[in-house]
Every structure is written in structure tokens, then in C-alpha cells.
């Protein structure tokens, strides 16, 4: 390669060397520059080196000093260790000194107390004496004896201890005696004085018991006076009917006042957390007085006799009213029932008050959760075993019996006195019955007892479902007389007799009215039950705002009994509608629809236009239906009228279907039928609020089939494509409909693939 073109090679080389040379020159130049730079820095660096070497001795000094510092710190740490040890022992020593001081103080006080206590007792200065004993009792007795054995003059100390022990039992006896004396003398100042001394002597429970026993006597005498006043009240007094409730209120209010006024006193001198002890004593008096009021009430109000009569009648069922027992007019029980609910409610309130008070006291005074639960449990038992709880249960039991009787009898009365006001759709028993039920449930709410409310709701469901619904059912069971009259005529008679209040004018009209009214009553009752449910729930929530989820479940379950009353009423209406269908609808509708058979459905074009102008069959049918419907429109409630229209529609469509299947058609006949079905559906749609499409589904489809131009067109409606119908006819039914068209060939129909 080099030999190929030497001249160019040299030139190339030369150019390279020149370039190299230039490079080197530049390099030299740069190096010279650098050298100059370094040279310039030399003096500066020399100065720096001089400065640094001057620092070296100083560094040595610093190192030494740091070493010293470390040593010093070590020393300090050592000595502080020693000091803290000393402080610890100092602390122990100080504690001992304190303890010693305490013992010395105790000893000094022991001496003072033992000397002072006797003097105080002799001076009748029981506060002072009790204060000494209190001081003595606050000493740690075991320490005291230990001190005694540690010292020389054992006998001295033990003597003082014994003196004080003697003195305290002496004082206890004196205070108890003096307290009783004060009670006997009605000496209020002394009572209060000694009440305050009890806790000083460590007699908390005794003090509370004595004091509350004293309070019991006060309560008792007031209560006795109140009861006597109550018994003396004349029957003419307007409080006579509730005088025992009033007496109970006085008792409970008195007790509440006693508790409210004395609780602060007990808390101040005895400390918090002791209210239950006081309540336990007071509850005994409350029980005694409650029982007395209750017994007296039962006697004066003749409660046992009434309950006996009521039980007897309830057992026989209110229908067999002509027994040998004389019935009590439910109205006469109104006041008594009112009084019982009041008595029950007040008792319940008082119990709640006591519970609230004791809980609040325990919350403040007893921090320990376990102790608190013990208190709660104990409180529960006090209340559960108390006579006032027993009386409360008895009251509720009586209330429930009387209320049940009241409800059953009043409903029976409402049914017996049932009247239909002219131009009313429902009769008086509906309003009256639901007024009674509502009143009874309201009254049960006023007892304040959920169990009571639930029981009355249960009873109401039973009364409505068995007694009340039974009556409605019974009236429908009598049937709706189809009669010989034309219905329009019957309706007119019915209307005029209702308007003139002459319902007795004919058996048939009377039965019809009774039937229609029972049907309307049932419908109206459904609305009443729904409203009752709503209102009752709201009222109970107001009266018992603190229901827990279990209580709520209980209540809701009982209220759901009312919805089964509704279901029952709906069944009754269905039953009535079936009766109407058989008696009033079928006999009319069949001849009207059967008229279809009187007309030929083989039209020529000429006949078609003549027929279409009047649509005689369907227009007559519609006119007849119109008359029938309008005769029921005003006498049935709107929802019953709707149900009636449904019944009528079913009957018409089913019958027409049957009749169509008995006829034959040509193409134009099918066309006419299709139009007539549409007219009919249109008419009924206009009459009611619900959709009639469903009831007309089969008939419309039959008309569609009969209206086919050619057999094959059926595939426009049959199959799995967008235009297809949801068929209500089976393929077999469909084919038998096709057979009605005389122009369709039988074997072609058979060959259709459906």
C-alpha cells in the first residue's frame, strides 16, 4: 500500500509532523504559563507554612487540657454517685423520722384524747368526745401496739388505748341512746346533732339506719293522714274517681322530697356512695304504705269482684251475653281504668326516680367498677323484691283484664249499634271500633309499661281479627242477592231508600246494602289499621324514649300483628268480590256477551261498512257495562270500585273469549272483531286507574290472529324477532283460533311451524 503512491505519502507525513510540532509548541507555552503561576504562589504558601508551625505548641496545650477535663468529669461522676447514695439513705431516714413523728403525734394525741375523752363525756360534749374517738380511730391500731412494745412505758400506752376503746363504746351507746331519746322527743336539733356524730364513731351504717328509721316514722304519719283524708272524701268530689292515685302521688312525692333533702346531708357527713343504704330503709316504709293504699283501693273499688265478673264474661266470650252474671257496662269502668293507669304510671316513675338517684350517687362515690356493679345488683334486688313492684304488677294485671273487657265489650256494642247514615259508604261500626281500639292502646301507653302496651296491642289484634272481622265476614257470607230486579232498578231503589233512611223497605235492598256496606267497611278498616300502626308507633316512641333494641323488637313484633289484620281484611274483600262476581256480574254479563253469537261474522264489504258505522254488538255491550258500573260507582269506596271493575273486566274478557271460540269468521269478520276488542279495551281503560292490558292480553291476541290477511303473516308476530309478540296463547290454542277462520285451510294450519 505504501509503495503504491510514495509522493502522496510524504506529503501526508510532512503535514502530520507540522501539526505535531504545532501541538508541542502550544504545550510548551501552556507549561510556561503554569510554571509562572506556581512561581507566583510560592511566597503565599511559604507564609502559610510559617503560620501553621507557630500553632503546633498551642495544640499540645489543648490536648493536655482535654485530658484534664476528662479526669475531672470522671471524678465528678464518682462523687455524685456517692452523693445520690447518701440522699437515698437520707430519704429513708426522713421517712423514718416522719413515721416516728406520726407515732409521736399519735402518742401525744393518744394521751390528749384519752385524757380529753372522759372529760368531754362528763361535760356531755359529745362532739368533742367523738372527735377524740375519731382521732383515735384514725390511728393505725397495729402500729400503735407495735409502738407500745418498742417502748418502755408499755402499760401507759395500752392504758390510753383501753381508755379510748372504752370511751368509744361508751360514746356509741350514749349517742345511740341520745338519738333515740331525741327521736322520741321530736327534738329535731338533737336528732341532727347526733346524726352527725355517728360517722365520727365509725357508725356509718348504724347512723343511716337510725336516721332513716326516724324518717320512716315521719313518712308513715303523713301517709296515714293522707290515706284517711282520701277515705273521707265524698263521692261528689271531682277527685273521688282518682283519689287513690292522688294518695299514691302524695306518698311518692313525699318520699322523693325526703330523699332529695337528706341526700346532701348524708353525703356531707357520711360521704357519697351510701344512698342505697338509706333507700333500703325508706323502701320498707314505702312498701308498707303502698300496700296499705293498694289494699284500701282494692276494697273500696271492689276490684276483686269486678275482676271476677270480667274474667267470667271474657271466658264465656262476649257473644253469649245472656248469662246469669250481670254485665258491667264498659263505660262504668272508664274512670277506674283511668285511675289504675295513673297509679301504675306513678309507681313506675317513682321506681325510676330511685334508680336514677342511687346510680348517680354510686357514680360519684364508688370509683371501683366491681363495687359499683354490686350496688347496681343490690338495687335491682331491692326493687324486684319490694312490695311496690308486686303491687305494680298487680295493678298492671288488673288494668289489662279490665281493658280487655272494655275493648271487647265496647266493640261488641259498636257492632250491635251499627247504623248506616244516608249517603255514607261505611257504617258507624268502623269509626266506633277504631276509636275504641285507639283509645285503649293510648291508655295502655299511659301506664308507662311496655309489656302492658304490647299486651293491649295483642288483644286489639285478636279482637279485630276474630270478633270484628268475623262480623264483616258474616255479613258477606249472607251473600249478595241477585234478585229478579234489573240492576239499574235495584240500584235506584237502594239509593232512594238510603236517602230516605228507609232501609227496611225491602229484604233484597236491605241485604244488598248490608253486603256493600260490609265490603266498604272492610276497605275502610284497612286504612284505619294502617293509620293506627303509624300513630301508635309515634306515640310510644314519645312516651318511652329510651327503648333499647330488644324492647323495640318486641314492640314491632306485636305491631306486626296488625298487618295480619290487614291481610285478613284483604281476604274478606276478595271473598266479597267473588260473591259479587257470581251474584251481580255473571248473570248480567253472560247474556250481554252471548249476544255475539246472534250476529254473523262473515261480512261482505257492504255489510262491513254498515256494521262499522254502529258496531252494534260492542256498543250495546259497553252501554250495558256502563250502566252496571255506574250503579256501583257511588256506593263502593274507590278502591272497592276498582276491584269491582277488575272483576267485571275478567268476567267480560273470559266470557267473550269463550264465545269467540264458538263462532266462525271470514277475513272481514276478523277485522271487525279486532276493532271491537280495541273499542272495549279503550272503554275500560278510560273507566279505571289500573292498566287493563293484562286482562285483555289473550283476547287481543285472538283478535290479532283472526284479523290476519293470510296464514303466513303469523310469522310476523311469532318467533324470535323484534316484531314478535309475547304470546299468551299456546301454539295449540293459536291453531284452534285459526280454525275459526273459514277461509284458512285446515291442513295449512296444521303445517304451520310454531
Amino acid at each position, binding site marked *: 500500500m505504501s509503495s503504491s503512491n510514495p509522493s502522496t505519502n510524504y506529503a501526508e507525513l510532512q503535514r502530520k509532523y507540522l501539526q505535531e510540532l504545532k501541538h508541542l509548541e502550544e504545550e510548551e507555552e501552556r507549561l510556561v504559563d503554569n510554571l509562572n503561576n506556581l512561581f507566583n504562589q510560592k511566597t503565599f504558601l511559604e507564609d502559610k507554612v510559617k503560620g501553621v508551625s507557630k500553632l503546633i505548641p498551642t495544640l499540645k496545650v489543648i490536648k493536655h487540657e482535654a485530658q484534664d477535663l476528662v479526669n475531672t468529669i470522671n471524678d465528678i461522676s464518682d462523687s455524685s454517685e456517692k452523693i445520690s447514695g447518701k440522699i437515698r439513705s437520707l430519704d429513708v431516714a426522713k421517712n423514718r423520722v416522719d413515721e416516728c413523728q406520726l407515732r409521736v403525734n399519735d402518742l401525744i394525741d393518744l394521751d390528749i384524747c384519752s385524757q380529753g375523752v372522759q372529760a368531754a363525756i362528763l361535760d356531755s360534749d359529745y362532739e368533742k368526745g367523738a372527735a377524740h374517738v375519731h382521732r383515735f380511730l384514725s390511728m393505725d391500731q397495729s402500729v400503735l401496739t407495735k409502738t407500745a412494745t418498742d417502748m418502755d412505758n408499755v402499760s401507759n400506752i395500752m392504758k390510753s388505748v383501753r381508755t379510748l376503746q372504752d370511751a368509744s363504746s361508751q360514746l356509741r351507746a350514749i349517742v345511740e341512746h341520745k338519738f333515740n331519746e331525741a327521736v322520741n322527743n321530736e327534738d329535731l336539733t338533737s336528732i341532727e346533732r347526733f346524726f352527725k356524730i355517728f360517722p365520727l364513731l365509725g357508725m356509718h351504717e348504724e347512723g343511716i339506719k337510725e336516721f332513716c328509721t326516724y324518717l320512716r316514722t315521719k313518712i308513715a304519719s303523713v301517709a296515714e293522714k293522707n290515706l284517711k283524708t282520701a277515705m273521707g272524701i265524698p263521692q261528689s268530689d271531682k277527685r273521688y274517681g282518682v283519689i287513690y292515685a292522688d294518695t299514691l302521688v302524695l306518698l311518692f312525692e313525699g318520699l322523693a322530697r325526703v330523699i332529695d333533702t337528706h341526700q346532701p346531708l348524708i353525703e356531707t357527713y357520711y360521704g357519697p356512695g351510701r344512698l342505697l343504704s338509706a333507700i333500703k330503709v325508706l323502701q320498707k316504709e314505702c312498701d308498707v304504705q303502698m300496700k296499705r293504699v293498694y289494699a284500701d283501693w282494692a276494697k273500696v273499688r271492689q276490684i276483686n269482684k269486678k275482676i271476677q265478673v270480667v274474667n267470667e264474661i271474657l271466658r264465656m266470650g262476649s257473644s253469649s251475653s245472656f248469662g246469669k252474671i250481670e254485665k258491667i257496662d264498659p263505660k262504668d269502668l272508664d274512670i277506674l281504668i283511668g285511675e289504675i293507669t295513673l297509679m301504675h304510671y306513678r309507681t313506675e316513675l317513682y321506681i325510676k326516680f330511685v334508680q336514677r338517684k342511687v346510680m348517680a350517687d354510686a357514680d360519684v362515690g364508688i370509683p371501683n367498677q366491681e363495687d359499683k356493679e354490686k350496688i347496681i345488683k343490690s338495687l335491682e334486688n331491692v326493687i324486684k323484691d319490694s312490695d311496690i313492684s308486686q303491687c305494680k304488677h298487680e295493678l298492671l*294485671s288488673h288494668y*289489662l283484664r279490665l281493658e280487655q273487657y272494655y275493648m271487647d265489650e265496647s266493640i261488641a256494642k259498636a257492632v250491635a249499634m251499627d247504623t248506616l247514615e244516608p249517603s255514607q259508604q261505611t257504617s258507624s261500626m268502623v269509626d266506633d271500633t277504631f276509636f275504641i281500639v285507639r283509645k285503649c292502646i293510648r291508655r295502655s301507653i299511659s301506664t308507662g309499661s311496655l*309489656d302492658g302496651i*304490647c299486651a293491649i296491642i295483642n288483644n286489639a289484634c285478636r279482637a279485630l281479627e276474630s270478633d270484628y272481622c268475623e262480623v264483616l265476614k258474616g255479613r258477606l257470607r249472607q251473600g249478595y242477592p241477585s234478585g229478579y230486579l234489573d240492576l239499574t232498578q235495584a240500584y235506584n231503589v237502594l239509593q232512594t231508600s238510603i236517602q230516605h233512611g228507609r232501609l227496611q223497605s225491602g229484604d233484597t235492598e236491605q241485604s244488598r246494602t248490608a253486603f256493600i256496606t260490609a265490603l266498604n267497611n272492610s276497605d275502610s278498616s284497612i286504612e284505619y289499621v294502617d293509620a293506627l300502626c303509624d300513630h301508635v308507633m309515634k306515640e310510644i316512641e314519645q312516651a318511652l324514649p329510651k327503648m333499647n333494641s330488644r324492647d323495640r323488637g318486641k314492640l314491632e313484633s306485636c305491631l306486626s300483628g296488625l298487618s*295480619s289484620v290487614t291481610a285478613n281484611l284483604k281476604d274478606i274483600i276478595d271473598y266479597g268480590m267473588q260473591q259479587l262476581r257470581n251474584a251481580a256480574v255473571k248473570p248480567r254479563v253472560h247474556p250481554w256477551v252471548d249476544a255475539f253469537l246472534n250476529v254473523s261474522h262473515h261480512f261482505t264489504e257492504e255489510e262491513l261498512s254498515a256494521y262499522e258505522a254502529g258496531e252494534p254488538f260492542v256498543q250495546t255491550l259497553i252501554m250495558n257495562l256502563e250502566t252496571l258500573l255506574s250503579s256501583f260507582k257511588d256506593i263502593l269506596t274507590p278502591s272497592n270500585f276498582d276491584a269491582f271493575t277488575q272483576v267485571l273486566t275478567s268476567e267480560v274478557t273470559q266470557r267473550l273469549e269463550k264465545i269467540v271460540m264458538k263462532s266462525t269468521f271470514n277475513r272481514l269478520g276478523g277485522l271487525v272483531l279486532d276493532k271491537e276488542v280495541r273499542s272495549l279495551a279503550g272503554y275500560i281503560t278510560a273507566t279505571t286507574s289500573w292498566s287493563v292490558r293484562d286482562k285483555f292480553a289473550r283476547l287481543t291476541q285472538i283478535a290479532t290472529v283472526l284479523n290476519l290477511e293470510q296464514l303466513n303473516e303469523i310469522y310476523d308476530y311469532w318467533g324470535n324477532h323484534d316484531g314478535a309478540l309475547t304470546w299468551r296463547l299456546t301454539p295449540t290454542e293459536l291453531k284452534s283460533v285459526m280454525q275459526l277462520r273459514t277461509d284458512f285451510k285446515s291442513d295449512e294450519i296444521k303445517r304451520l311451524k310454531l
Partner: protein
Amino acid sequence: MDDYKFLFKVVLVGNAGVGKTCLVRRFTQGLFPPGQGATIGVDFMIKTVEVGNEKVKLQIWDTAGQERFRSITQSYYRSAHALILVYDISCQPTFDCLPDWLREIEEYASSKVLRVLVGNKIDREDREIPTHVGEEFAERHNMYFLETSAKESDNVERLFMQIAEDLMKQARTRDLPRYDSNAQSINGRTSTIGDSSCCSKLQ
């Protein structure tokens, strides 16, 4: 709303102290309560169980045995689907009272109510009522019979499950002839299994 298909009301009755509350607690909470007081009025518990893949909600009403609560407890008989009458096998008087209880049931409960006789406390050594005596009584009065111990959890689950199964069977067979509009009242929401529709009675 929970998705149960059947709801049945079960009411327990019998003398105070025979262990009704304990039976209910054992079944619903799986425990034997120590020293709870006598029941006041009625207590209400719910447990949902499964019978053959179907959820069945049992609403259990535990009643107080004492006379003074009778007017409360009686009001629950009518809507009960099953009544459990309990006595204590170690306490003759509780057995002797059974006829009284039956009379009460006759008077207040639906005639179709499922009735079960239960002898409780079989864990006790001091039995006074032999099993066959209870059995015979139950047979004579057309009741189911079972002996249980709420304490040892003997037969408690079985008692309630048996009731649930039976009531479901009953509901199903009664359900069959009733199709369209009445169908939903059978699923228990409206608690009308005990009382067949008025129409069937009327026709």
C-alpha cells in the same frame, strides 16, 4: 332487612323456676346464666337457624310463670306457631300443674299450634318424674315430648331445631294449595301461618 324466608313465633310456658329462661339463653346465647332473677312479664329473643339451606327466623317469647303476669303472657298465645310447655323433672308440683297449663293453651292458643312438652333439668340426681310418665302425658295430649338439660346443654339445640323443621314442613304443605295473591303471607312476614285465610274457611 335480613333475608330469612320463614318467621315462626315460639312461646315458652310453665311454672316459674322450671328453667324456661335458661333453655332460651342456652339456645340463643349458648350459655347457662348464673343466678338471674325470675322473668318479669315476657322476654323476647331472636335466633336465625338454617333448615335444609333455608333461613328460618325463630322469635322466642320467654314468659313469666307467676299468676300475676298471666294477663300479659296469655296475650302471646294466639299468634304462637309453637308452644313449649316446660316442667322440672325433679319437682313434682311443676308436673302436676301441666293440666292447668293445657287448659290455658286450649283457651287462648290457635288449635293448630305445635305443642311440645319438655321435662327439663335431667342433669339432676333427684329425679321425681320418670321419663315414661312424661312421655305418656305427652302422648295422651297429642304433644311432642323431649327431656332436656339447659345446664348441660342436652337436647336444647334439638328441641328448637325440631320445632323449626316441623313448622317449616307445616308451612310448606299449607303453602301448596295457595298460589298467586296469598303467597307472600305464607313466607312469615305477616305471621299468618297459624290462621289459614278466611276464604278457605268461608267457602
